[in-house]
């Protein structure tokens, strides 16, 4: 129980099945406040499903999911979980394509999400400053008034990270941020995430080993819906069970 109390995110024995197929079977994991954790695992290991459970998209059949030691996430919906301070970047980048880069960030900016508050909302000076900061962080100042659909794949990924930051979350869940990026973009994204981790906790799912090595953080290996191994990148890379799972890849 102590483990739960001092943690930011606490998963214990989480199980999820889809029509009999067990996507998660007894997944347990603890993320400390301020930590950055990398999660790897072969296709279908349950990484995305794990994020679905944390963010309220999927209800687990069994197990405990606690945020900040005490808040039970399994009883809340997506919007409520988001407003607790858990932000998510999806595997397939989903930005609002028919709106400008800046408007995408405006939508994500922390603030009252109520219907009438948004109806009568006027951008404050502080919000405008924050928007400029975010645009600079994700290097999209020059394209802020363009429609998001005109961005390159890598830029969409960054915009999504920017939207995540705009929500001022305590915990960021980032699903495959560098898929489809060039090597240079990948390294820049690692840099960006490390910078973000100076103030926020991050859970990042990624296949790209170079990227995970570049992050230089504790790694959890998922396999068939449960934790296979955990530790430094060198530790897990030399774990015989991990080698077996990844054999031939």
């Amino acid at each position, binding site marked *: 129980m102590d483990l739960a109390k001092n943690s930011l995110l606490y998963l214990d024995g989480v199980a999820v099945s889809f029509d009999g197929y067990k996507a998660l079977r007894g997944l347990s994991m603890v993320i400390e406040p301020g930590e950055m954790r990398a999660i790897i695992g072969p296709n279908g290991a349950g990484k995305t499903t794990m994020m679905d459970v944390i963010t309220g998209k999927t209800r687990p059949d069994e197990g405990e999911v606690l945020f900040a030691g005490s808040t039970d996430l399994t009883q809340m919906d997506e*919007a409520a979980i988001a407003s607790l301070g858990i932000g998510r970047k*999806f595997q397939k980048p989903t930005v609002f394509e*028919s709106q400008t880069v800046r408007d995408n960030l405006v939508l994500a900016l922390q603030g009252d*999400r109520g*219907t009438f508050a948004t*109806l*009568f909302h006027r951008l404050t000076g502080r919000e405008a400053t924050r928007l400029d900061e975010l645009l600079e962080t994700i290097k999209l100042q020059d394209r802020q008034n363009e429609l998001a659909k005109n961005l390159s794949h890598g830029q969409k990924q960054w915009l999504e990270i920017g939207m995540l930051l705009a929500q001022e979350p305590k915990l960021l869940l980032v699903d495959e941020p560098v898929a489809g990026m060039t090597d240079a973009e990948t390294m820049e994204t690692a840099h960006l995430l490390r910078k973000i981790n100076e103030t926020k906790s991050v859970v990042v799912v990624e296949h790209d080993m170079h990227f995970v090595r570049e992050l230089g953080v504790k790694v959890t290996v998922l396999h068939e819906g449960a934790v296979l191994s955990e530790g430094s990148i060198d530790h897990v890379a030399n774990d015989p069970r991990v080698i077996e799972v990844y054999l031939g890849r």
Partner: protein
Amino acid sequence: MITSFLLKGFDRRVTFAVLILAVIAVAVPCFNLYLPQNHPLHVPTYLVQLWGKYAAYAMLAVALDLVWGYCGILSLGHGAFFALGGYAMGMYLMRQIGTRGVYAHPILPDFMVFLNWKELPVTWYGFDWFGYAAFMVMFVPGLLAFVFGWFAFRSRVTGVYLSIITQAMTYALLLAFFRNDMGFGGNNGLTDFKDILGYNIQADTTRAGLFFLTVLAVIVSLILASAIVNSKLGKVLLAIRDAESRTRFIGYRVENFKVFVFTVSACMAGIAGALYVPQVGIINPSEFSPANSIEAVIWVAVGGRGTLVGAVVGAVAVNWGKTWFTGAFPAYWLFALGALFVLVTLFLPKGIIGTLSSLMARRPAPAGTLNPKPAE
């Protein structure tokens, strides 16, 4: 707060449309009332009435575009909100008849006397007072939309399923209003109106006044809808339309936004119906027929979904076409309408206004910058 909110509604397209509509609202009644019959610019009364009807349809189309074009809610039941507003107005007009009815009953409308009813049903209380009727014109459709939306959107019914249940809703109302014991005139509906607010409903001046008010209502609804879509809430609506679950993950309660916009839109449709009824002189259950709601969707598609001004253009254009077509080949209108829908979907997917505005957006750009490549 309200002023700065409404000011957001005046983007270029809407301002332009509002100016044109304002000219029409004033010019048509003047040309009807003050120019001699033989003057080339004289507008005959039957046209004032016909165009007033188009204006009411245009307002319905704006209401529909607000939910469909901007929030992706394809309502196939907006005709029901229109008809409910129309019935509320019809009930007021019925009670104005008083002793001038065939049976000359001071309280009961003719059809109730005919059915041998002894007293006025509770649903009809208060409708002799215009203020109450005007309130019900918005309240009844708004309440229905709120309750319907509350259940449908909370259970996350979307897409085709939502369209089907909206269609079922209007069909159920159609059947209900057909029944005599509902107390709304059954099959025959409400008609034989005499006057509105003391003015003879047949008089040219009343018709001209109704025309003016209806176009004014179109203007107000355009500005209001435009203010909504240009606000931050409008951005949320677009976000819901394009990526609903993503919008939830940023922390917006999608169902609340949908209920809000659906209710606003239903109130607007109700007012449109209320303005329609005194101009056509009758409201009956056929206004609930599912085909009406589908026709409204076609107006919006033709004019350009998600452009607001397009809804007005589409409603007027299609109905003008309908008037002409049903005169020339009465049996084939539904085929023509179907063909129009298919053609627009295939060849003009953005509709008239959508296509025009993307042409205009493209023209000023010098050659070679048509499709700027994303920078590395």
